[in-house]
């Protein structure tokens, strides 16, 4: 019942300081590493795409690289869209 709320203690404000600390620790851990080495992601993407392209015909614009930086674990996600058989045939015909 609403009027009973009057007797309850006021809801404490959310303690957000711990979230601030945790987020800072994670982002700085990564930025400090990046400071000594230059950003390797663009180069990694280029080289990976080059390797895959040696075996499969791919469209360089259909490559997505995502990095999710976490405290204990980071994931690097690379998504390369391969052309369907039709597109591949067309491409092959075009290059002839």
């Amino acid at each position, binding site marked *: 019942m609403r009027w009973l709320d009057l007797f309850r203690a006021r809801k404490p404000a*959310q303690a957000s300081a711990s979230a601030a600390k945790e987020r*800072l620790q994670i*982002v*700085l851990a990564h930025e400090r590493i990046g400071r000594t080495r230059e950003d390797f992601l663009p180069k990694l993407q280029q080289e990976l795409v080059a390797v895959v392209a040696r075996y499969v015909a791919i469209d360089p614009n259909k490559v997505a690289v995502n990095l999710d930086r976490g405290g204990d674990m980071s994931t690097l996600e690379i998504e390369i869209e391969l052309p369907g058989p039709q597109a591949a045939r067309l491409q092959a015909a075009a290059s002839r």
Partner: protein
Amino acid sequence: MAEVIVVTSGKGGVGKTTTSAAFGTGLAQRGKRTVLIDFDVGLRNLDLIMGLERRVVFDIVNVIQGEAKLNQALIRDKRVDTLAILPASQTRDKDALTKEGVQQIIEELSREFDYIICDSPAGIEKGAMLALYFADQAIIVTNPEVSSVRDSDRILGVLQSRSRRAEEKRERVKEHLLVTRYDPARVERGEMLKLEDVQEILAIPLLGVVPESESVLRASNTGTPVILDNESNAGQAYKDAVGRFLGEDVPHRFLEPERKGLLRRLFGGRAA
């Protein structure tokens, strides 16, 4: 040789100029011959915070470009006689500062002063880089807030890689952490990063903690460095920091919320 101290932070609005004014005035009050240089060319404000805006005739860019002698541009403070400031230019842009020009000014000031305090502009562009380039020591002004802490960390990286000491592979720039706008009541409620957290994250020696205080705005309104306000918490905290900088063992104050009596709680009255 004078010690060159840069007051920097990366982020804007955290209290660099307030700190430069207070800390420099504090050193001068201790009899140290101190000069403050405003590096924020285009957006000068140290003169205003110091209450010397009406005495600016020449500025740092005039000196670099040979239009005025250093002594003509220096403004001697009338409240503390060992204190002087070198204002920034209001009309030129940052490119008017050159490394050689700044070096010459610092060398010349070194002969007359014990401490040269460089008030850095925000950011990490030319003005900020030049402000920290010649530093022997650095005061990192940080608010207990994520973007400020992150930018401080970034600036620490710049200091250890791009300063003259780093380039010449000499002894590293000595770093001091100054936490400003600290609100112990909000820290107690878990709403603000704790001092210990900021220290743990940045991992540099603590010079002082300046509490959030109404006296800082009052001081800037009147053009009086807050350290000259003996009643204010912030002024006292800056005094303590100056003492620690000079090697004294001064305990930290203003880290706990003020306990107000019932009457004060009812009838208001905030931190001095």
